[in-house]
């Protein structure tokens, strides 16, 4: 236990939480936007994977991490565009479309990896770009806080900025209004001449954009190469985080952090020799328990309200 605390009560542990959370936050924000427009995007996992690959490949070809990032984003937009085309225009079931994109990504990236560097495992033999880490002046002078908050990859900061951006987008901008209206009542939106399909397509594109940033982080920030299936379920975790965060940007960011913390904890516990098979379930258990507690509380609260109302003194004596 002491050993565990020694590992956990360090700035680098909290630093690692932010790093672990980065790709999840991106994808979860993507899900928030898509879900708000009533079109759940479960292709996040695949989009991240494709973006991770494309980012690696193009940065290797161009020797520029920024071009890599740009191409990763374009690939994310392209995937989301394909998904939008089929699910919105051709009315493919959106869940099926997501499964299809995920399938395309898991096979397609390995296939492309093989064509690109004759290796079906990783691209480590090819030098590819890494996005810079940012030392925040002043902040990095502060002892503990600086160590935790400064020196992250630029995408980590972008991830948390994206939370604010999504919040403003949804609450303050006309597009956000349209997204919400379409998600809540597509007919109502249509009746005022909002092009429902177009708005949903934009939502999917935004979510593809955000997920592609998460993917780029995987291969160009977190580590500096691509390896098969490297997203390893983070897209699904993001979907869980979004559901637990009730589609609200801030709530979703918090649940993503919760998950990141549990993941960082499981890493620490794993290093200390806890049973590996069980330790790896910690983040999922935490999410599950968190969700249960959250739901029970919601349930209680609604019950409580009802009971409170019952106990209220009658406006007129009964009888």
């Amino acid at each position, binding site marked *: 236990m002491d050993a565990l605390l020694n590992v956990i009560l360090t700035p680098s542990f909290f630093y690692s939480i932010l790093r672990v959370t980065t790709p999840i936050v991106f994808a979860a924000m993507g899900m928030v936007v898509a879900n708000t427009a009533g079109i759940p995007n479960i292709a996040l996992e695949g989009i991240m994977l494709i973006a991770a690959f494309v980012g690696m490949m193009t940065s290797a070809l161009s020797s520029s991490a920024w071009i890599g990032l740009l191409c990763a984003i374009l690939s994310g937009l392209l995937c989301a565009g394909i998904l939008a085309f089929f699910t919105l225009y051709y009315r493919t079931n959106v869940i099926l479309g997501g499964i299809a994109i995920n399938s395309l990504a898991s096979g397609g990236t390995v296939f492309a990896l093989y064509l690109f560097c004759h290796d079906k495992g990783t691209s480590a033999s090819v030098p590819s770009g890494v996005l810079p880490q940012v030392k925040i002046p002043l902040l990095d002078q502060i002892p503990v806080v600086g160590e935790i908050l400064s020196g992250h990859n630029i995408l980590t900061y972008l991830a948390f900025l994206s939370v604010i951006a999504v919040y403003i987008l949804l609450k303050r901008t006309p597009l956000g209004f349209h997204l919400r209206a379409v998600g809540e009542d597509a007919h109502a939106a249509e009746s005022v001449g909002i092009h429902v399909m177009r708005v949903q397509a934009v939502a999917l594109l935004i979510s593809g954009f955000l997920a592609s940033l998460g993917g780029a982080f995987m291969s160009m920030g977190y580590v500096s190469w691509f390896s098969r299936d490297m997203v390893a379920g983070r897209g699904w975790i993001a979907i869980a985080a979004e559901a637990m965060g009730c589609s609200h940007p801030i709530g979703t960011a918090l649940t993503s952090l919760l998950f990141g913390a549990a993941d960082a904890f499981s890493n620490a516990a*794993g290093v200390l020799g806890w049973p*590996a098979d069980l330790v790896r379930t910690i983040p999922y258990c935490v999410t599950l328990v968190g969700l249960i507690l959250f739901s029970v509380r919601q349930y209680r609260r609604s019950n409580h309200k009802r009971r409170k109302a019952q106990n209220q003194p009658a406006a007129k004596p009964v009888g």
Partner: protein
Amino acid sequence: ACSTRDPAQTGGTSSATPAPTAQTGSYTPKNGESLNLVLLVPGLLGDKSFFDATNSAMDLIQSELGAQVKTVEMGTDQTKWYPTFVDYCEDGSYDLILTVSDSVNDTLIQVAEEFPEQLFINVDATMTDVPDNVYAMLAKMGEMSFLSGMVAAKKAEELGVNQIGFVGGLDIPGINEFLIGYIDGAQHVNPDIKVAYSYVGSFTDPSKAKENALIMYQDTQIIYTAAGASGLGVFDAAKEFTAKGEPRFAIGVDTDQAMSLKDSDPEAASLIITSSIKNIPQYTCDAVERFLNGEIPWGTNEMLGLKENGVTIAKNEFYEKLLSQESRDYVDAEWQKVISGEVTPLDTVGMSTEEVEQIRQAAKP
């Protein structure tokens, strides 16, 4: 003909006798011209481990022995393996069907019995009842990890620390053989040395491996990784620590990972002391040569350890740079002792979960 590598680099003596070429062998290929071989991989290439190594063995066999070769990935779904084997057996034009790893054993035995005329070689497996038309070889992972353990312990000695680490892919026997051999080798140098260990939980999640290593590197200077593609994360973590001015080192596995990263990531490569390697390409090519000469002991499972030159560690520029001459001499000397039988590393093959648990707990910091 198969041992194209400089034998000096491997440290041990090659067991391969100068081999005759395919044409001069006593075996006549089925199609009358060249040898026709297929490798059935029970999984997917890109594991950076025995699948990839066996695949490169096929290239070697093609270039050295002029054989026709083909590699087939059977995928991770075990139920697909049997039909694949049967397709190739029914084809009937293959002189030899090669395959690799333990996971395929059940299928191999079943198929071998159904097609007694077909010959099979499993290039890296433990098999108890080997059918008469099958020959199995096994590279002793424990012994190559024994070398890594010695290297790690010597490096720790040089750094003046008493702890080394290990990051595995999954907590499974195949990986624990690496761990136990490693612990054994390290304790051979320093009986009191502590070995921290952890498992990534996946062979394909380098980011998670990096997280593991970043934690472990906080109080450990050297980490040996046996985690497939995830292992790359460990090198990345070493690089990150070193960049902060706290030098950290790693030992790779399966292929000479320092050399393969040298161009793409020189900083990471310069922190990899060595890599423990199975000589699969060489000994597989040797085996095919022996097959041509009619020297294969069908129906047996041969163990290939340090003595048989089945395993080795990489001795490259980084090894020389990162480990002192004195330590390297020590490793070579002990290596010879293993070959001569003076030193016997622990036999890790078929070790029970309890034994593994006992050994790794005892060495835990």
